[in-house]
């Protein structure tokens, strides 16, 4: 395939996680096989196939994302190069920079897009996230970047504001003991 990089850019435009990337590539491969190797394959048939085959909410999201890549992307594949090009795209995705992020909840697509956009803007324009669930993170996140785990979860923020907590508790203790002494005096 001549313009692998352009296709990858097109895929990354609405794909921010590795799981989404692999899932959508599978959907793309399935649609292309249907279009190229079945009778009557065409633009109308392709969209019909997408929405008829992938009906659950998660599958529908993947199908919509693949449909959003546009006809230009689909037209770049033909019967001869389909398998090789899909494999080349998978290899390219493997080589993209990625960051493992541990968050306490499963995020919705809009949140993933927000976080992914922030990462593309501030870290790397082609970065992919590997989102994982860690309830102990409580808030914020931990992430692995360049083989090093960084803890920026609530634990980190609590530790950072440790002195403020202690001051609040100390003030509360003093106020409690004063009021208790006053009550005893009365």
């Amino acid at each position, binding site marked *: 395939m001549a313009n692998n990089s352009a296709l990858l850019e097109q895929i990354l435009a609405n794909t921010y996680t590795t799981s989404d990337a692999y899932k959508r590539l599978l959907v793309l491969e399935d649609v292309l096989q249907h279009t190229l190797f079945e009778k009557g394959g065409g633009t109308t048939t392709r969209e019909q196939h997408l929405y008829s085959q992938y009906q659950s909410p998660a599958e529908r999201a993947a199908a919509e994302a693949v449909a959003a890549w546009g006809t230009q992307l689909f037209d770049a594949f033909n019967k001869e190069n389909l398998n090789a090009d899909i494999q080349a795209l998978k290899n390219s995705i493997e080589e993209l920079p990625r960051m493992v992020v541990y*968050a306490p909840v499963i995020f919705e697509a809009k949140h993933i897009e927000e976080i992914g956009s922030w990462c593309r803007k501030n870290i790397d324009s082609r970065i992919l996230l590997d989102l994982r669930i860690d309830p102990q993170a409580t808030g*914020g996140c931990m992430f692995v970047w360049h083989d090093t785990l960084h803890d920026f979860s609530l634990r980190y923020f609590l530790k950072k504001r440790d002195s403020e*907590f202690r001051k609040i508790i100390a003030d509360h203790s003093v106020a409690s003991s004063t009021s208790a002494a006053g009550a005893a005096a009365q």
Partner: protein
Amino acid sequence: MDNALSLDPTLGFAIGLAFAFLILLSLEIYNGRRVSKLTPAYEYAQRRAEDEADRIIEEARAEARKLMSAAESASTALARARKQEGETAEHAYEAALRDLMQKLEAQLTTSVKLAQESHAKISATLSSQLEAGGKEARAHLSESGTKIEQEYRSRLETELATTLAAAREEAAGYARARRAATDAEITSIVGEAMRIVLQKGMPKDVHADLVRSALEEAKASGIF
């Protein structure tokens, strides 16, 4: 003739033997007759010789008795003389020994007297020296005691001050550790409470904002 010449050798030997026996018998008879003629003269000569020998022996005995008597007298005289000489020598030895003992006794008495005098002098000298040394030692002892007491007191005060400081430091350390442990416990409790509250009640939008804030914090820390 032939029979006479052919005589048995055994028979010949027996005839020769009988012939020799006859010759010997005749010689013996001849000698016997001669000896019986000589025996009286021989017996006389023998008797004379015995008498002579008895006489000589008797004379020798008498001579020996004389000699023995003379020798006994001489030996008795000699023994008496030796006994007298021994007694004389013994007396002289006893006298000399007695004299020597007296001299030794006198010398010993003198030595004892000299030793007693020396002892008295040494005792007197030592007493005077000891008395002088004792005064000095008492003074030195008193001075040393005062010094040791002062040094001991100073060291004790230093030790006490060090121990007290260490105890204060330990108590402060313990208080710090306890405070830190309490703070960590409080932070942990607050964190757990927040985790329970946040996980159950906080919208995902807020979680997403927190993640973004965390990433911004990381960026500000220079991680990216």
